[in-house]
């Protein structure tokens, strides 16, 4: 007779008051299992099943450690899916194998509470292998009770990851063959390779002495949670007489004779629980963190409504990765915002970035912006030859192309747009930083088109660039770009001395 059956009988007996109650059912169990649809006095577990014993050990530990009002039990998929029928604690039922992940979410949402992840072998060691390994590796403050009975019980006797070599199941009809199914997985040993767990022990329900060892292990795992937490893992080798086709006593013996040799009983980890190294940031207010401080008079002064000659201006900036094409676009966007315009910035992203080319679309407008995707830019800033060749055919007729070179490349058929060649990289080189080429081009754009104010550019640069030396180089580069256009490009001309070949 299983422990639960005895308990159930004891309940009924107590009600009839015709024999002395030696050992009352723990108050951590519901007196009557109202959540169960039938036979609410008895459990759904088979006679001789280990789950009943493990349930009892867990319930008594919760009771003795006064944890009933602090405990959340996560029930798995498998025979223990209905653990919530019995335990009078907070209950959360979860998907197959995912109990350690759900327990992670619970434990982190409820610090100081006791979260128990109760799982079987298929749940924990097959479908949920990733979840248990990573929860253990993070040292989640949860107590894991792992009931290993070497078989899938609930679904009717299929092979488990812990099924023994040679053991027959409905899905290993010739016995488990390592050549086909591999070896039974030893979870304690596997998890003991990790640094974070506080406590790992394997126990067996093969006789009373070992059941008392299991009792101590479960209590210890819960004490760790009570005292501040750490990852505690108790594997319980447990009989499944129904599926094994044995009676209760023979099943217990089978645990001792067959399972224990394959899964040695041991304490694999026992260290003082406590927080793992590493702290978090100092908390700040939401407004500070999101940079949405209350509106001040200063904010409105940041926006300077300039008069703009355009209704909408679209700019495409393209170059190689590292040339600062995306940054140039972002600065333009920020400048537009400062001048009271509607703005959008759309980058190329992902592998394209990493393979060495980058471009972005900038839209500046007096109206709400429709598509941020620009098919025919008014301005193309081509920071290299590839970009010039690739994107110049898209430029709007009578648009502008700024090309980062002293002249156009050979065999280039220029489109119907004004093209200004400017050796921005060389100019930036002379100023001490090739990277400032984008600033030279920004200066040239502002001078050439007057689309945004140069003073806005200086203010944005000063705010966005924190390093003083870099700030000065950028200012010089911006100015050099402006002067180049001013001096060397005949404003209003169709051609540029060294460049435009059309």
């Amino acid at each position, binding site marked *: 007779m299983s422990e639960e059956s005895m308990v159930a009988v004891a309940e009924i007996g107590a009600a009839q008051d015709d024999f002395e109650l030696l050992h009352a059912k723990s108050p951590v169990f519901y007196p009557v299992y109202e959540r169960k649809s039938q036979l609410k006095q008895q459990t759904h577990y088979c006679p001789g099943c280990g789950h009943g014993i493990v349930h009892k050990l867990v319930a008594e530990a919760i009771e003795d450690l006064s944890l009933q009002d602090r405990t959340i039990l996560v029930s798995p998929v498998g025979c223990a899916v209905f653990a919530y029928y019995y335990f009078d604690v907070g209950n*959360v039922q979860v*998907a197959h194998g995912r109990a350690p*992940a759900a327990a992670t979410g619970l434990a982190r*949402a409820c610090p100081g509470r006791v979260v128990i992840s109760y799982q079987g072998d298929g749940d924990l060691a097959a479908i949920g292998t990733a979840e248990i390994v990573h929860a253990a590796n993070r040292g989640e403050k949860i107590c894991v009770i792992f009931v290993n009975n070497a078989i899938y019980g609930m679904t009717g006797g299929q092979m488990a990851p812990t099924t023994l070599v040679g053991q027959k199941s409905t899905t290993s009809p010739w016995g488990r063959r390592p050549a086909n199914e591999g070896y039974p997985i030893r979870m304690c040993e596997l998890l003991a390779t990790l640094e974070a767990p506080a406590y790992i022990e394997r126990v067996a329900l093969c006789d009373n002495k070992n059941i008392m060892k299991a009792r101590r292990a479960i209590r210890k795992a819960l004490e760790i949670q009570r005292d501040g937490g750490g990852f505690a893992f108790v594997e319980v080798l447990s009989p499944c007489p129904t599926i094994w086709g044995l009676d209760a006593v023979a099943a217990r013996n089978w645990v001792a004779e067959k399972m224990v040799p394959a899964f040695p009983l041991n304490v694999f980890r026992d260290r003082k629980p406590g927080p793992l190294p590493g702290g978090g940031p100092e*908390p700040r207010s939401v407004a500070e963190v999101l940079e949405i401080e209350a509106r001040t008079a200063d904010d409105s002064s940041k926006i300077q409504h300039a008069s703009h000659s355009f209704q909408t201006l679209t700019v495409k900036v393209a170059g190689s990765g590292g040339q600062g094409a995306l940054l140039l676009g972002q600065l333009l966007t920020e400048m537009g915002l400062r001048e009271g315009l509607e703005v959008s910035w759309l980058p190329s992203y992902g592998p394209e970035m990493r393979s060495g080319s980058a471009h972005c679309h900038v839209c500046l407008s007096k109206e709400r912006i429709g598509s*941020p*995707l620009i098919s025919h830019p008014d301005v193309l800033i081509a920071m290299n030859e590839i970009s010039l060749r690739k994107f110049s055919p898209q430029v709007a007729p009578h648009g502008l192309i700024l090309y980062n070179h002293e002249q156009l490349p050979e065999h280039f058929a220029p489109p119907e747009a004004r093209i200004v060649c400017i050796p921005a990289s060389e100019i930036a080189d002379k100023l001490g930083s090739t990277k400032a080429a984008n600033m030279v081009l920004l200066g040239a754009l502002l001078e050439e088109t007057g689309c945004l104010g140069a003073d806005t550019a200086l203010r944005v640069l000063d705010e966005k660039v924190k390093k003083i030396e870099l700030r000065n180089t950028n200012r010089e580069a911006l100015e050099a770009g402006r002067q180049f256009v001013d001096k060397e490009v005949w404003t209003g001309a169709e051609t540029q001395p060294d460049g435009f070949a059309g």
Partner: protein
Amino acid sequence: MRQLCKGNVAVIKGAILAGCRAYYGYPITPASEIAESAALLLPQVGGTFLQAESEVAAINMVYGASAAGVRVMSGSSGPGLSLMQEGISYLAGAELPCVIVDVMRGGPGLGNIAPEQGDYFAMVKGGGHGNYRNIVVAPASVQELAELTMLAFELADKYRNPAVVLCDGFVGQMVEPVDLEEREAVVPEKPWAVEGTAATRKNLVTSIYLESDELEGHQRQMEAKYALAAREEPRHELYQAEDAEVLLVGYGIVSRVLRSAVEKARQEGLRAGLFRPITLWPFPGRALVAAAARAKRVLVVELSNGQMLEDVRLALDGRVPVEFYSRVGGNVPTTEEVHTRFASRVQAAA
């Protein structure tokens, strides 16, 4: 104050303003900045960020946190959402609120990382097993990514159901001004939550109902709340639709292109208008019927093989001819492309 912000970052800003204090996720392009901003910002406001070992784990961490009553979210892109579908089904079945952001990329399979809208069926029609719905909102700008994330939290709690913010790679990656104000997040009481306290000890979060009648009852109750949402929550936006002969229908980034196409058409004297669903489930079908009342044609444009198209056709039920224009694989139609598509037809018809 208006500040420039990347779409993916705005998601987390909106989430924090909505009182979200927990994020569980896994990186994926083009959604990674959501996890990155959550990692940077949430711990500073006393929240939790955890990079999970997989999207499978992430969504189940969300399940656990939601069961404890906190406002919690995750974010990913198509392949990650495929992995989350199991968990989303459990969340819906257990009636747990949460917000999930899908920054759609090209598919199927690994596809590519460019924008697409091929996850409509998976997110709007289901994707996981069983009878359930996701509430789905579809932002088209960075400001909306923040605002609709906030709305998603409210709707998720109101209906005790997952809410999905469905956008594409462009909306997630673009930078635009956002104007956000601090506000008191009103998180409703959750007497059903399991918090590990005496007051919540009797609570049970589960999606298992072993008896057929019990499960049917549970599902009928879910249907009732979905019916309520279908009445109360559809949202849409109209642009120049009042007298439109050609009504363009698109959501997310496509609606932005369509808006430009409407402007271009109007300049040429063509009476075009735009209908933009803001909620995809519940789909604003009645509003669409009203908006299409004068239309001679409806043109649906999607970055998919025609997924929302089915909802448009269901709503219009043959009242107006519905045409479809599609780009996939990461291609986004240009304004001119859409314009050419319908303007030439208008001229041909005239």
